[in-house]
């Protein structure tokens, strides 16, 4: 039983088909890569999955339930979280508040106990503070908990964004070019981090990436997207030797 099943998914903008007849299956615990040249439609796939865009055709099932038509926050509540290609932190808030917002959907104290400061408010806040702090420790950010997010160095902002996504307690994590703008050392560390959080949080991860070394090093299976269509899929070594992929994507770099 796959965790995520995308069936014949298509999306057109006006007359332009950004994604066409996409079929992807992801099983629980897998770490999957989604690669392709610029403008191939990778981020569009994420936007379709998370409800930012509405599909034109096709089916999307997550944990055996239809998720098309859901709003982004509903998709998140079902257990899918994402990061963004261009970091979207709550940049004027502190690091810990960024993470606390992620825990918002799992916090149940009511508006009434908020306004009148009933005991459930205090216990709820305490629990959130505790959980958020634990998460920051894992990402080595606990010393920066009270710092403003926008003042963090770039690499830490990327890490915080992943931490924040994990705060929603997802089953499936969607990472949109997590290594963008990182140097080889940082990319290497990120690779280890991704592997490690998968074990730690028992996650399934779908990763969009440009950096080939990252994808080849960390992913178990790879889908290659070109002009909105899957042109190849398989293990990293199969992808490396697939002539179609070499032509469409690697071609420029190999030749």
């Amino acid at each position, binding site marked *: 039983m796959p965790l995520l099943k995308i069936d014949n998914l298509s999306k057109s903008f006006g007359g332009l088909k950004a994604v066409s007849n996409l079929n992807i299956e992801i099983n629980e615990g897998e770490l999957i890569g989604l690669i392709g040249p610029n403008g191939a439609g990778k981020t569009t796939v994420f936007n379709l999955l998370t409800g930012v865009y509405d599909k034109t055709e096709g089916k999307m099932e997550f944990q055996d339930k239809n998720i098309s038509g859901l709003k982004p926050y509903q998709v998140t509540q079902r257990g899918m979280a994402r990061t963004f290609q261009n970091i979207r932190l709550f940049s004027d808030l502190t690091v810990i508040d960024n993470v606390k*917002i992620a825990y918002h959907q799992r916090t149940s*104290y009511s508006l009434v106990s908020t306004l009148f400061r009933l005991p459930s408010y*205090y216990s*709820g806040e305490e629990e959130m503070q505790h959980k958020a702090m634990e998460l920051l420790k894992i990402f080595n950010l606990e010393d920066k908990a009270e710092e403003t997010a926008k003042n963090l160095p770039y690499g830490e902002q990327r890490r915080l964004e992943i931490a924040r996504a994990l705060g929603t307690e997802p089953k499936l994590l969607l990472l949109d070019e997590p290594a963008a703008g990182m140097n080889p050392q940082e990319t290497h560390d990120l690779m280890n981090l991704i592997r490690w959080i998968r074990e730690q949080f028992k996650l399934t991860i779908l990763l969009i990436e440009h950096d080939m070394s990252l994808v080849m090093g960390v992913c178990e299976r790879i889908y290659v997207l070109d002009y909105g269509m899957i042109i190849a899929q398989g293990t990293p070594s199969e992808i490396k030797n697939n002539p179609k992929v070499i032509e469409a994507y690697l071609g420029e770099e190999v030749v």
Partner: protein
Amino acid sequence: MRNWFNRQNIVSLLGIVLLYGVIQGLIVLDIMPPFYKLTLIQICIYIILATSLNLINGITGQFSIGHAGFMAIGAYISAIVTAIQHGPLALGLLAGAIAAALAGLLVGLPTLRLNGDYLAIATLGFGEIVRIIFLNTDYVGGAAGFTLPSTITWTWAFGLMAVSVVLMKNFVGSTHGRACISIRENEIAAESMGVNTTKYKVIAFTMGAFFAGLAGGIYANYFYIIQPMTFNFILSFNILVMIVLGGLGSMTGGILGAIVMTLASALLAGVPEWRNVITAVLLVLMMIFRPTGIMGTKEFSLNFLGKKSEKNAASKN
């Protein structure tokens, strides 16, 4: 600390009581001339208005400039209850606030998906529509408005102001308040973090309208007369200036802005044109040189007196 009985809250409570005691003492001992009492009540009204607009504009980042409309609804409904139907004051105030909140809900649901200046202009239009409706309603005296007894005392005004501010501050310093702030910071990210952005925009908008309605009720039951002209968009702009001056997103900044602006306009009462010109120049200079206002999004607090509890619970106070 699992309940409200902590140092931070006790310090705040003592501060409020002390402030009331000092001013009440000045009034009882006749040190304060009666003219200032009027200004004091105005300050209370504007603090509620500024704080509630800040909830919408500063905290949630939804740019509304129709606050005078909600105030008008609160003023008229409460006046109808107390003066025409001879109901008790508390009931009138409550009815006015609830009516304003309902209007907020009604306007907020369809318009809050508009962003930035489109929302601003829609709320401005709404405020004007409300004014024109009262202008055309003979039951409330049309353009001439109607008179009612002044039943609000300084104690009422202060008490209602304190309760309103505490409730709104409680809201902001909670997970619900943070959800609103996350919308201001980055709406797409907020949504992807599981925040139902529409719901929280509507909650903030409705709450803001509720308290604006309450302020309107206090206004109506203090100033003897209400007229549609009072609630024009200049009033909305004035409230906006207060929160911009104090710092959009800072609750204490909004309070500070309300006090400064009300005092300034009391001092310049003899030359109303100058008052507005100064307001205008101030607004432009502020935007060019210090767009974050006096406080930015920071808060002023007495917490240094009770430092230990600060990091607990509401860290975003």
